[in-house]
């Protein structure tokens, strides 16, 4: 397993790019070749990933494993450092899972203007970007991967999107780029503040602790990172790109966006912002928590006003990521664990919901909630799956969504030392009320789409059929995971716990003195 130990991560990250290179050799009209190639590439990537994850030492999730440290850009002392710990593993697994499923789903669901070669290549490039972000341990490398995902997504929305695709894609692109610029600035500031010798996350964290950096400076630097990550998450009030991007993106784009891309932001908080600048994090935490709970309520209210199914699901992401951010803002191991779980759960559940929305759109050619209805009659299995995901999304205990929400709410009752306890308890109550609203908009959606009878215009529409083969293939793993993680959450908590405890104790140590 030496190869896996040394080069496993590198191979995993760049395998999709290799696949793209191979795909480039084939002409554009060889649709099936491209589909097969793309699927194979994603499966090979997954296989390498599984080999890595199988070799991962689950008893030592707190420390970085598979460390790869090479020279990269000497001029700025940026190094090619890859490594994974318990925090990365769940997200890598999620990414490895989602991409093949998306490609499998694409088999007969290509959005206009078709062109599988370009579409699948973009998905694979995205894949590299996402995996890279989760394994990079050097800020510049992290940033590069973080930005690599932008462009393919921009094209996916801009080319294969809905009628307002241009507006949505530019908004998405500029918005995130704006955040990234500030984030990069913060990275550079950190680099110079610590003597300009390293971009390694681990070393930076140590250096910042060892140095006496002015509080204000730390706050500003954290602020830059906050903007970068918060826009990606997205937190209220930086979320407005999300509904547009989701609504306009093709189904596959929405799924990847919801399942993985949004996690880059929250992952960044836990991986980069908190460990490196714990003191600033502590000062920022009440504000982050406040924005998070506003997001929870705000997202829910936004959902209630939507008339479009996909837009509703998009808005629900704002609310759900609010729970994740609330968990992060408590700076406790409970909250951070909840955040990691919330990321994975939200990825699975909202990914599923977008899949369903895509399939509904394909059958009904509309997502207008008013015109839908009686899904359980015309496509019973699809209706049941929607019901299942609705329940999971509203945080029903026993399904995955609950374990992202409940521990976050729990953690808010007793945030880390030094945070305003009363304030966070207030947040807790608001967040708990958010669960009612979540149930409200999701069940309301379910009632109007699945219950009742089929609207006249869709009676006997031959287009409307039940779940088909590629859909089953793409969905079954997600559905199973939602259930399994919900029943036995320790599968995930056990993995993330080690590194989360590390982060939490780092923060506690730094803010304690």
């Amino acid at each position: 397993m030496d190869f896996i130990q040394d080069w496993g991560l590198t191979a995993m990250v760049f395998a999709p790019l290799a696949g793209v290179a191979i795909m480039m050799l084939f002409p554009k009209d060889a649709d099936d070749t491209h589909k097969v190639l793309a699927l194979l590439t994603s499966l090979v990537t997954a296989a390498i990933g599984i080999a890595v994850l199988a070799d991962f030492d689950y008893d030592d999730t707190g420390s970085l494993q598979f460390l790869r440290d090479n020279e990269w850009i000497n001029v700025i002392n940026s190094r090619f450092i890859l490594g994974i710990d318990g925090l990365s593993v769940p997200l890598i697994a999620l990414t490895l899972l989602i991409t093949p499923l998306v490609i499998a789903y694409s088999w007969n669901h290509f959005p206009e203007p078709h062109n599988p070669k370009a579409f699948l290549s973009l998905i694979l490039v995205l894949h590299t970007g996402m995996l890279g972000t989760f394994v990079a341990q050097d800020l510049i490398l992290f940033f590069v991967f973080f930005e690599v995902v932008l462009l393919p997504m921009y094209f996916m929305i801009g080319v294969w999107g809905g009628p307002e695709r241009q507006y949505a894609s530019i908004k998405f692109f500029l918005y995130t780029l704006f955040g990234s610029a500030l984030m990069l600035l913060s990275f550079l500031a950190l680099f110079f503040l610590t003597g300009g010798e390293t971009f390694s996350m681990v070393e930076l964290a140590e250096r910042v602790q060892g140095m006496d950096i002015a509080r204000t400076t730390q706050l500003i630097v954290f602020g830059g990172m906050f903007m970068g990550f918060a826009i990606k998450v997205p937190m209220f009030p930086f979320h407005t790109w999300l509904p547009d991007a989701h609504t306009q993106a093709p189904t596959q784009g929405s799924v990847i966006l919801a399942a993985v891309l949004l996690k880059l932001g929250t992952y960044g908080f836990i991986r980069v912002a908190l460990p490196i600048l714990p003191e600033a994090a502590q000062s920022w935490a009440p504000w982050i928590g406040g924005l998070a709970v506003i997001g929870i309520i705000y997202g829910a209210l936004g959902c209630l006003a939507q008339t479009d199914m996909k837009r509703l699901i998009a808005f629900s992401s704002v609310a759900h990521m609010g729970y994740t951010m609330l968990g992060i803002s408590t700076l406790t191991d409970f909250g951070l664990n909840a955040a990691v779980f919330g990321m994975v759960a939200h990825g699975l559940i909202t990914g599923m919901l977008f899949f369903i929305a895509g399939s509904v759109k394909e059958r009904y050619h509309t997502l207008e909630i008013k015109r839908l209805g009686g899904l359980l009659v015309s496509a019973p299995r699809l209706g049941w799956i929607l019901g299942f995901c609705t329940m999971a999304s509203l945080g029903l205990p026993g399904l995955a969504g609950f374990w992202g929400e409940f521990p976050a709410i729990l953690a808010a009752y007793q945030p880390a030392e030094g945070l305003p306890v009363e304030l966070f308890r207030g947040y807790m109550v608001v967040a708990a009320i958010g669960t009612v609203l979540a149930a409200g908009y999701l069940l309301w959606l379910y009632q109007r789409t699945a219950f009742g009878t089929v609207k006249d215009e869709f009676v006997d529409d031959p287009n409307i059929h039940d779940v088909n083969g590629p859909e089953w293939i793409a969905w079954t793993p997600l559905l199973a995971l939602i259930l399994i993680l919900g029943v036995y959450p320790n599968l995930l908590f056990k993995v993330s716990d080690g590194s989360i405890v590390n982060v939490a104790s780092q923060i506690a140590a730094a803010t304690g003195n």
Partner: protein
Amino acid sequence: MFGAAEAAAGAVEPGFLLENAYVVPLVMAASFALTLAIGKRLGKHASWIGIVSIGFCFLFAVGVNVQWYGYVHDSEHAAESHSEDSEESHGEDTEDHAEDEDEAHAEDGDEAHAEEGALVLPAAEGIGPMVDGESASARGPPTVAAVAEEGEGGEDGHAEYTIEPVTKSVTWWTNGTVEFEVGMLLDGMAVMMLFVVTLISLLVHVFSTDYVAGDRRYTHYFAFLSLFSAAMLGFVMSQNTLQLITLWELVGVCSFALIGHWWEEKPNSDAALKAFLTNRVGDVGLLVGMIILFFAAGQTFDIIEINTLANSGDITHTALLVASLCLLAAVMSKSGQFILHTWLPDAMAGPTPVSALIHAATMVVAGVYMVARMYGVFWNGLVIGGSSVNALAVVGGLTVLGGAGLAFVQSDIKKVLAYSTVSQLGYMVMALGVGAWTAALFHLFTHAFFKAGLFLGSGSVAHAVHSFDMKKDMGGMKQFMPKTFWTFVICTAALIGIFPFAGFWSKDEILAGASQLGGDGSYTAFLVVGSIGALMTAAYMTRCIYLTFFGEFRGGHHGEVSHGTEDHPVEEDHLAADSGHGDDLEAAHDPHADDHGLPHESGPRILVPLYILAGLAIVAGFANVPNSGALSWWPEDFALVFEHLFEPRGGYFPSLTEAGPTGAVFAHPKFDIVIALSSTLLGLLGIGLAYAWYFKGLGPHGITRRNRLAGVGHRILVNKYYFDHLYTGIIAGGVKGPVARATNWFNKHILDGVVDGVGKGAVVGGRFVYETIDQKVVDGAVNGSGYAAEGGGQVFRIMQTGKVQQYGAILFAATVVLAGVFIVVI
């Protein structure tokens, strides 16, 4: 944790079934999965999976009860032998019996006890073979005398012992150093609930095979019955509060699915949504309360530990008070307490057997059960044992009267029963609120039987007339369905509390508790409330029986009326409609569908459950006959068995002997002949008044039209105190309507506007901003909501001038600004 006795009790072997009771919910969960997986293929036989599973679980539960009896017995003796002679080996209690105060148990040894139990009780209670096991377990343990005399007087001579709950758990998840477990916690009340839930669930399964035969979602129906049973059984055995929350919500989902079983019609799905959302409102309280307890008890969800700490005063009173008030919100929503009761009557949109199982006998008592389960918290948090009037009692009292009042104006038989359930749940909560724990649980126990009987009875009637409307489609049913009628009457008698039916004993105990507990009689007000409630119960149930079973038959025109009438669950339409599909299920069912002329008695699968429930409604009350006061002649062996067997003993329950942190001792009320007689008389009076009003036509009929005040009162009742209006119209409508729309508007116009504005500002500065605002106003006026997308696109179009210089300008300006920030920061 439990002091000296722990070691002693720990030595007692709980028995195989007790230790493995966790398989019960697992079996039901498997049944759910299996039914879903292969049910469709089995057609009408799909129900067999569920029936066999629940049957197995019932037998298992009976076995658990038997072993529990032995376990309680052993625990006592082990404790005694321990306290009297610590050298004695704990497992054996052969010699100590000679020294017991209890003379009824002169014979020694376990086998003797068991044998005697098996022999005596069936004879004494005459329940029949079905409940043999339960009876055998419900027998008088040796120290009954001491316990019975305990009361508030607290006589000496009671051997202090604990009954160690049987627990078993595995790690569920971990967080840092804290491990969370999932497992079972079996003590008296859990064992009791196991029996109740499995029994009623079994009967409902059997009943349903006839009742919903031919339904198009037959499989799903039984699948969800299984899932519900699994969740409920898991709920009662929850080892920790997190598990409690999980299963609490799961039963809610099953309730949602089953209320909305016929979701093609909007009212049904509305009712399902309402039930779920109302429960979610309560769940906020549940989550918050449990979180408070989690931290107050030092990061643990363990129910026993939380209760123990609450009892020992290690959790501050403030935390307990806040937590119990939060949890009260959950109780109010789940157990249909005022003011969150509104979903329960609507929930009658579901199939009737579901109403019987979920919305009368089991799920709705989850709130009550939760209070009982966390009694250490409530007892100390609300200072129940002290002299203050507490929220729990007030809510319960309000519910008793409010629910009963509404039951008078319903024309739908199921809604009468639903409001009656609300009212009876009020009794239970009130009982818990005044400190009569055992009375509450006992009432829960008896109520489960007779209310399930009533619901199934109403189902039986409705099955015959295809409607639930008493005023329009029933009347004179007695002649058509005598068997149903008599079971209904028996259950009604139990509900009203006529001696010697089950309800009499439990309601009397509650009333006695209200009069005697709480120090200086500060709960007397609730005695009055309870008594008035009894009177009202009697009256509305008499009205119900009159409208249903007496007078002229008004039905037979089913086809025309039951469509579209607002209050009518349309379930019978489904049955009728489905019977026409010509599948082989119809053989037995067809006669009903065709023969509308005259209703007739239901088949055996409906009647047998009714018989069993009626039988239990007669005898269940004898499970806890007090032997104090006027009844002190009652043999001690058979007195207060329920209390003795099912009331927890240990540090996690308010102590019978020592004052807890709030200075109160947990006590049992004594039998009071005056209260017993007066409540019976009130019940009879209620029957009499209703009889006079309905049967004889006496009294001021039509007063609601003549007298303004009465008219207003009537209107308020008909409108259900306007709660629905408040919730659906104002709160939900408000949130869904204006508030959500305002948020959306804010999002579209303000936030998106800011984004777009920033985009513009970066490009061209002031002049363009002016232009855009200008444009925005025009655009906004012209096509309001479509602005965000269009206007935004416009903005970015402006930026896209194609002028290289301008691009360069932006690029440079941005770079310079960034560099500036950079330099300033460094």
